[in-house]
């Protein structure tokens, strides 16, 4: 219950407010100014390439790289043999004397920075080696990895000088490439394909031991032009594994030669279906173009039959892709292939083919959900950004877990399991939703960053954060309570463990230096955008600004400043304070309600006020036990025993009304100016309750205050106080709330919409909260069931462990 007092007068009330502010200012002076300071010196200066509104400037430029590639998969040796011709167009306002090419496969070379900086392990203070680490080492010993450059030549066939620096290669041009100029050169290369499960990477091959079959998925596989940009020149941060990539847009013609019984899925459109597909398959594809549900192009039965033989004849699949920033493909004789049409308006393609490729091991869950999830992603993402800009969108099952994206093609995990007892394939609820989630996420990446071409190697959050945010929107639109964060788990609740931890780095950290990659680059920025949309800006303003950002930077290169500026520019909402707190600091959201004081406006009439004051004092200062127990014990006071001691003070207390008090009240009324009298009389008629609610910013991030007032009559009222309330003092604020009925309690952020880390201080009066462990322990039945199961398992483990060495010592080398 909130205690009610009367303000001594309207004037006195104002004085209370002022004195409160002055008392708090000592420790927090200037804190609001610091929190709401504009990002002027933090953001790069606007220029002719990127303007102050966050849009591309009048002289915006970017390079172009077009590729013609012929590649052969040597299945026998798990090896790639490739030749490419690159046409590079220099649109920069400067001449280039050399070009940089990325060789990401060199990350797997034993001499790479990545390999040489791997660290060893200790457990329990002893050196240790896990099976996975040992297998990785063995794989690296078995054969060499990395790009083997066979030739680098100009258009006339002359050798070009090149220098390899870890995962980069510099090609020295015979003459500077001037602005607007083009150069054509070729690279022949080969490399061994890694086994992804052993070495780890974004591409490789997967081996199915049971039937000795393979899936190949080639990502970051060919020498690719490094990005050359207005903000950093050549992008030559070496590939260390964590920071992904950014490249130049261009057109690709790629010929992929594989065993003739393989099915190939690739970036781009298949240009020679007559040469590689059967008539039946071509007919099915045509049927799928008009279908609103997936149609098999290769059925599960056909795929099963296909993988029994191992053809050595070759076929060449030809693909063409326009305006893409990379090219990836996958090939296997195991693939089932299904497809359906996605129809859209306003884009370059009215019909987009959504397709999935997967082995029988991935069914039935893939047949049910993969291609449908591809279509759903385009439905939702296009609504918040732009129509899907390519003719195909593909989901390929290339590994058991995880996911990875490339233009028009994504590599996704999740498979059912074989029940050992029944021999039947089953999939869990989580496998189902995990698959839908990963397909949405990776297909979503075709928008961000494959089209909105942010620089993943510098700012992971720009694609992962934005995409995770959109992924959640799409998941909620797939079905209510989608278990991405549904049931009891709110995205904003899931980030608080991370945001309250130490050893964080801000979101604005270069990709390879990010600590706790997932929460830092995925969940925290996604949470930030969710808070922006649902609480700070509102959906209408957020959606308009976000769509404008996507429109402005489609097929261009945005930087963080372009995003920050566009979101402000298009919405009319100053968000510098938000970017500063969420993206440039490690602060978190934790606002507490520290006090609520309740008043009514004093009549100043002593006949009314003094009795109330007397009653209030009695409430505030209950009779001491010493006194009441004396009375109960029959102890007589001296005054009772000696009545002569009694005088006027014994008959009147400090609240007895005197003529002096009455005169003062009359003087007060006479002294009021006409407008003050009207205010006084209205206040007397309204009989409102006035509340002073104190908020403390414990976490450091200024936050809007979604407040719920619970009234004594059982009703409640939600109100949203904008974050600007913290602009003078970002540590403590007091909000005055006037209502015509009594408030019983005040609650903050009841819908969990601000990422508040501690709800223990979000109620006034405070509510008792229990830790998860205490709540768990209080459920005796559940706890006992678990305890019984633990005992059972421990006993079983003891029995199994008898005579079985759990640690295998290796003999040290002499």
């Amino acid at each position: 219950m909130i205690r009610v007092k009367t303000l001594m007068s309207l004037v006195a009330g104002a004085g209370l407010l002022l004195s409160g502010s002055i008392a708090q200012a000592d420790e927090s002076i200037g804190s609001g100014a610091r929190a709401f300071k504009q990002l002027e010196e933090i953001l790069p200066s606007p220029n002719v390439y990127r303007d102050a509104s966050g849009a591309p400037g009048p002289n915006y430029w970017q390079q172009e790289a077009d590729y013609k590639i012929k590649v052969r998969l040597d299945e026998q040796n798990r090896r790639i043999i490739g030749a490419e011709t690159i046409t590079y167009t220099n649109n920069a306002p400067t001449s280039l004397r050399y070009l940089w090419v990325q060789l990401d496969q060199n990350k797997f070379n034993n001499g790479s920075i990545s390999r040489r900086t791997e660290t060893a392990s200790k457990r329990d203070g002893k050196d240790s080696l896990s099976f996975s680490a040992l297998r990785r080492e063995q794989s690296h010993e078995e054969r060499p990895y990395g790009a083997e450059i066979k030739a680098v030549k100009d258009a006339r066939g002359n050798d070009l000088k090149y220098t390899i620096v870890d995962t980069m290669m510099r090609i020295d041009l015979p003459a500077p490439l001037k602005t607007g100029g083009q150069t054509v050169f070729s690279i022949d290369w080969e490399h061994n394909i890694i086994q992804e499960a052993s070495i780890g990477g974004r591409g490789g091959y997967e081996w199915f031991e049971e039937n000795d079959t393979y899936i190949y998925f080639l990502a970051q596989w060919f020498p690719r032009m490094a990005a050359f940009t207005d903000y950093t020149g050549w992008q030559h941060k070496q590939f260390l594994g964590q920071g992904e990539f950014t490249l130049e847009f261009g057109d690709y013609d790629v010929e992929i030669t594989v065993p003739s019984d393989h099915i190939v899925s690739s970036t781009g459109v298949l240009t020679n279906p007559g040469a590689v597909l059967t008539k039946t398959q071509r007919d099915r594809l045509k049927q799928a173009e008009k279908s609103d549900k997936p149609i098999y192009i290769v059925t599960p039965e056909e795929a099963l039959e296909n993988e029994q033989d191992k053809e050595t004849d070759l076929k060449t699949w030809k693909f063409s892709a326009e305006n893409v920033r990379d090219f990836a493909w996958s090939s296997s004789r195991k693939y089932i292939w299904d497809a359906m049409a996605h129809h859209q308006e306003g884009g370059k393609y009215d019909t987009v083919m959504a397709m999935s490729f997967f082995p029988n091991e991935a069914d039935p869950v893939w047949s049910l959900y993969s291609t449908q999830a591809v279509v759903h992603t385009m439905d939702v993402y296009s609504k918040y950004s732009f129509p899907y800009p390519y003719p195909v969108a593909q989901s390929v099952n290339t590994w058991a877990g995880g996911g990875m994206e490339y233009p028009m093609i994504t590599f996704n995990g999740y498979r059912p399991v074989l029940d050992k007892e029944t021999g039947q394939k089953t999939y869990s609820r989580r496998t189902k939703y995990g698959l839908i989630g990963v397909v949405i996420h990776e297909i979503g990446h075709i928008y961000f960053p494959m089209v909105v071409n942010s620089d993943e190697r510098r700012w992971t959050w720009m694609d992962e954060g934005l995409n995770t945010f959109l992924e959640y929107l799409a998941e909620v639109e797939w079905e209510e309570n989608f278990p991405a964060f549904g049931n009891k788990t709110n995205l904003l609740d899931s980030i608080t463990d991370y945001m309250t931890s130490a050893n964080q780095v801000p979101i604005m950290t270069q990709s390879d230096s990010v600590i706790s990659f997932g929460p830092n680059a995925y969940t925290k920025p996604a949470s930030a955008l969710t808070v922006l949309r649902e609480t700070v800006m509102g959906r209408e303003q957020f959606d308009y600004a976000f769509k404008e950002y996507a429109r402005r930077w489609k097929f261009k290169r945005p930087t963080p400043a372009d995003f920050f500026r566009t979101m402000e520019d298009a919405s009319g909402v100053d968000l510098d304070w938000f970017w500063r707190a969420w993206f440039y600091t490690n602060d978190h959201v934790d606002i507490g309600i520290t006090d609520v004081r309740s008043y009514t406006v004093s009549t100043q009439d002593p006949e009314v006020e003094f009795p109330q004051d007397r009653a209030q004092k009695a409430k505030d200062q209950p009779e001491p036990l010493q006194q009441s127990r004396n009375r109960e014990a029959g102890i007589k006071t001296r005054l009772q025993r000696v009545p002569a001691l009694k005088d006027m003070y014994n008959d009147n207390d400090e609240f007895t009304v005197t003529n002096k008090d009455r005169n003062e009240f009359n003087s007060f009324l006479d002294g009021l100016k006409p407008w003050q009298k009207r205010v006084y009389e209205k206040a007397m008629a309204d009989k409102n309750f006035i509340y002073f609610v104190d908020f403390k910013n414990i976490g450091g991030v200024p936050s809007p205050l979604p407040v719920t007032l619970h009234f004594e009559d059982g009703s409640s009222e939600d109100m949203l106080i904008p974050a600007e309330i913290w602009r003078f003092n970002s540590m403590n604020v007091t909000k005055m709330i006037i209502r015509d009925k009594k408030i019983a309690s005040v609650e903050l952020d009841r819908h969990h919409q601000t990422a508040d880390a501690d709800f223990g201080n979000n109620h006034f009066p405070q509510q008792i909260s229990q830790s998860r462990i205490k709540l768990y322990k209080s459920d005796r039945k559940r706890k006992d069931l678990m305890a019984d199961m633990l005992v059972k398992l421990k006993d079983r483990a003891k029995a199994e462990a008898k005579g079985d060495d759990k640690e295998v010592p290796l003999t040290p080398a002499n």
Partner: protein
Amino acid sequence: MIKKFALYLFSVLILMQFSITGAHAHRTQMSITTLEYLPAAAGMTIEITHKIHYHDAQEALLLSDQGATGMSVMELEAQARFALYTSQNFSLWHDNAKTDVTLIGAEVDGDYIYIYQEATLETAPQTITVDCYILRDVFGSFGNHVNIRRGRNVQTLIFQGDEGVKSAPLP
């Protein structure tokens, strides 16, 4: 002189037969462990909560070759197995003395499986040492994030790759 060290291959009770070393653009795999140091009538109580994404726990169970294959994390036995596995891959020392940790139980809530442990200390220690290897033996890219809380103060230890024990002053 080259000092000789004994090198051990560790085997864990449940999950050790396969390993994934993927690099994914999707959700990064990590566990979050919270150690809450609370004053008790005599000394301190430590409430330990491990929070692991359901997908990761489920995936690990799928890879298990110890009878858990095909189990759903929703099953009591699977949760118990996971709790045992977690308790075997999480150790604590205070001022260099090993601390006995009691396994309380496990539950699934929303997208996460929670594993609960408890420990008691007679006196407040100066330093805490943690060995947290949860699922890093299964997924090469898995990380363990350990928050050590005392009141409003937090210390964090992050374990990645093959990293071993780490220490921090008690906040």
